[in-house]
């Protein structure tokens, strides 16, 4: 199945446009036509033409930028759609599908009826489709691109052999215009002149060389649903239904050695409204008995209305979770309890707000540690002993003191403090390779001041830009 106008078909399906239409892709510095519809081709435009030239030919051309990623997604969708005809469907190039219909055609009443069905369905879907049928993949490609579905292979031009343009031109200059001519020509000189590629393609088309169809693997789908014969409205009933769904989902996860990280439970009410309960887990998990209690809070907030008659559970984010041996050594049960707690707290304040400290390699006090979400990190014990540091750190608060010696008397937070002892200085230089607004004032001399009033403060002086600041408190 070849979709000659896949990209423009895709866009026009979404918003039908009557008239010449083209998708424009940027190649180098020029905007070139990427894909056009039939009217545009009738107006004399062709693929690869510059957009300015095309506008000169056809002033009322409507154009849109091309999005190859969306086209690739669309083709993947079409691949799934094509599974209706036969189970072995692979993707061929950027705009084609290859189907192995061996043993499937009779289900549609023969090959001709099957092709007619394909054409009818594609036309209904607004897709331009060209079909080729062949005993080999190469032959089918040749017929789809350069002929009709049942044209004899020998009469097709050599361009139908999936060769590059230079080879085709050279072959045509030699007088080998048809595949039949090529097949009849002596092989050795051809191989010498054009390399093995040409003969490989020819053999593939004629069936002398195997070319299997590799159907794209179906990605595992982690979704289950349950339709209830009678609508339910009680929390216990909803929990029981969720438990049943969880069992099925976790079996799927178990088979793939995966664990869910984010689960979405959608509850469809009788009146067609639907509500979602999202659960973000602090660690990949596939144990139903641990996930179920975590849903309780979210389910309790659901408004059941006249009742819920369909429930759907989907794992929207899945991470690999290999099977682990349990029972030997220390069972990490307290770790499990902790991750469950993180999940529950995260459901309330956001999973990224449950954090932990990790050591960082820096002398700058503010950067000597990292605060990272606990759900996405492991505890680390690489804390090095450092010179005495305050327990509390706050943004520097200026105090009105002059001179480079530690102050004997100063005001801080409306308190008058008298220094009893000053320990220091400890000079910390800014990390010049990182731009930091707070460290523009240059090096800092840190002092620990024990005051007569009791408070033990961490002060610093900036000699290059005279000033005193309080940045932390020890006890």
């Amino acid at each position, binding site marked *: 199945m070849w979709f000659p106008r896949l990209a423009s078909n895709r866009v026009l399906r979404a918003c039908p446009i009557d008239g010449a239409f083209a998708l424009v892709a940027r190649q180098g510095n020029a905007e070139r036509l990427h894909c056009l519809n039939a009217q545009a081709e009738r107006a004399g435009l062709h693929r690869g033409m510059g957009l300015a030239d095309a506008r000169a030919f056809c002033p009322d051309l409507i154009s849109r930028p091309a999005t190859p990623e969306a086209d690739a997604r669309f083709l993947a969708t079409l691949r799934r759609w094509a599974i209706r005809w036969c189970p072995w469907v692979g993707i061929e190039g950027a705009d084609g599908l290859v189907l192995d219909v061996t043993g499937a055609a009779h289900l549609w009443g023969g090959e001709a009826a099957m092709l007619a069905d394909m054409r009818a369905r594609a036309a209904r879907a607004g897709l331009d489709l060209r079909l080729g049928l062949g005993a080999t993949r190469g032959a089918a490609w040749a017929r789809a691109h350069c002929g009709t579905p049942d044209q004899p292979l020998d009469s097709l031009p050599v361009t139908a052999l999936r060769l590059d343009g230079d080879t085709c031109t050279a072959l045509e200059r030699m007088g080998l215009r048809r595949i039949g001519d090529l097949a009849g020509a002596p092989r050795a000189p051809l191989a010498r002149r054009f390399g093995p590629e040409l003969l490989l393609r020819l053999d593939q088309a004629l069936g002398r060389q195997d070319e299997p169809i590799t159907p794209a693997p179906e990605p595992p789908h982690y979704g289950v649903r349950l339709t209830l014969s009678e609508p339910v409205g009680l929390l216990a009933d909803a929990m029981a239904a969720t438990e049943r769904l969880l069992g099925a989902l976790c079996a799927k996860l178990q088979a793939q050695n995966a664990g869910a990280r984010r689960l979405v439970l959608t509850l469809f009410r009788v009146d067609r409204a639907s509500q979602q309960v999202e659960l973000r887990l602090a660690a990949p998990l596939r144990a139903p008995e641990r996930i179920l209690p975590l849903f309780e809070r979210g389910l309790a907030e659901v408004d059941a209305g006249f009742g819920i008659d369909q429930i759907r559970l989907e794992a929207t984010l899945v991470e690999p979770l290999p099977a682990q041996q349990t029972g030997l050594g220390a069972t990490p049960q*307290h770790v499990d*309890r*902790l991750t*469950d*707690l*993180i999940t*529950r*707290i995260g459901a*309330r*304040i956001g999973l990224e*707000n*449950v*954090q*932990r*400290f990790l*050591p960082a390699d820096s002398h700058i*006090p503010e950067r*000597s*540690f990292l*605060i990272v979400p*606990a759900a996405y990190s492991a*505890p*680390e*014990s690489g*804390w*090095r*002993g*450092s010179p*005495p*540091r*305050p*327990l*509390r*750190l*706050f*943004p520097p608060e200026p105090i009105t003191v002059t001179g480079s010696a530690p102050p004997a008397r100063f005001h801080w937070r409306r308190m008058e403090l008298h220094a*009893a002892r000053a*320990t220091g200085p400890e000079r910390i230089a800014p990390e010049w390779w990182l731009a930091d607004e707070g460290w523009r004032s240059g090096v800092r001399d840190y002092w*620990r001041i*024990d*005051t*007569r*009033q*009791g*408070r*033990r403060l961490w002060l610093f002086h900036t000699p290059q830009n005279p000033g005193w600041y309080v940045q*932390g*408190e*020890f*006890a």
Partner: protein
Amino acid sequence: MSRELLPSFPLRAARVHEACGPAATTFAVITAARTPGNILWIYEGWLPATLHPPALVAFFDPARLLLARAGSQADSLAVAEEALKDGAVGLVVIEVANALDLREGRRLQLAARAGGGTGLCLIPEGMGSNAAETRWRVAPVPGEGDSTLMRWEIIKNKLGTTGTWHVRWDEQAHRLHVVSPAGEQPGSAGLPD
């Protein structure tokens, strides 16, 4: 050891306690050092002062610490209740900015009783809840040649008497020493409040 000398410390488990005063953070950190298991520290995101983990090394391994940044006091109390009820963490420290009423304090107390963990609210001076098991006022005291001397005063105690002690944290041995006022420089025992 200090256990006999300080009748209400370490804090009674499965209860919620309160600490106020300038050195309440140190009190919480020392409590954490004396509590096995993980520690959950709940703070409100808008507060400028943060814990400085390199300083925690002198008390306990910061890997045991989990932080929860709540958006409001209602959130932080809800998180505290959840964590206390679950019992997966040994100590829950809650930084409280506004006064707790009796209902909130009581809920925390019930949650702690159900889960078995200890709760500690760091409250502003005079904003305690009546439900608290004990309330401590902790202030640093200037000491000769000693930079960790503190005055711990227990100002509310449901099961015991109140009292005042001078204590010092030993960073090497990771333990608390009670210092007799007699060993202090003159006047320090009777420091004005």
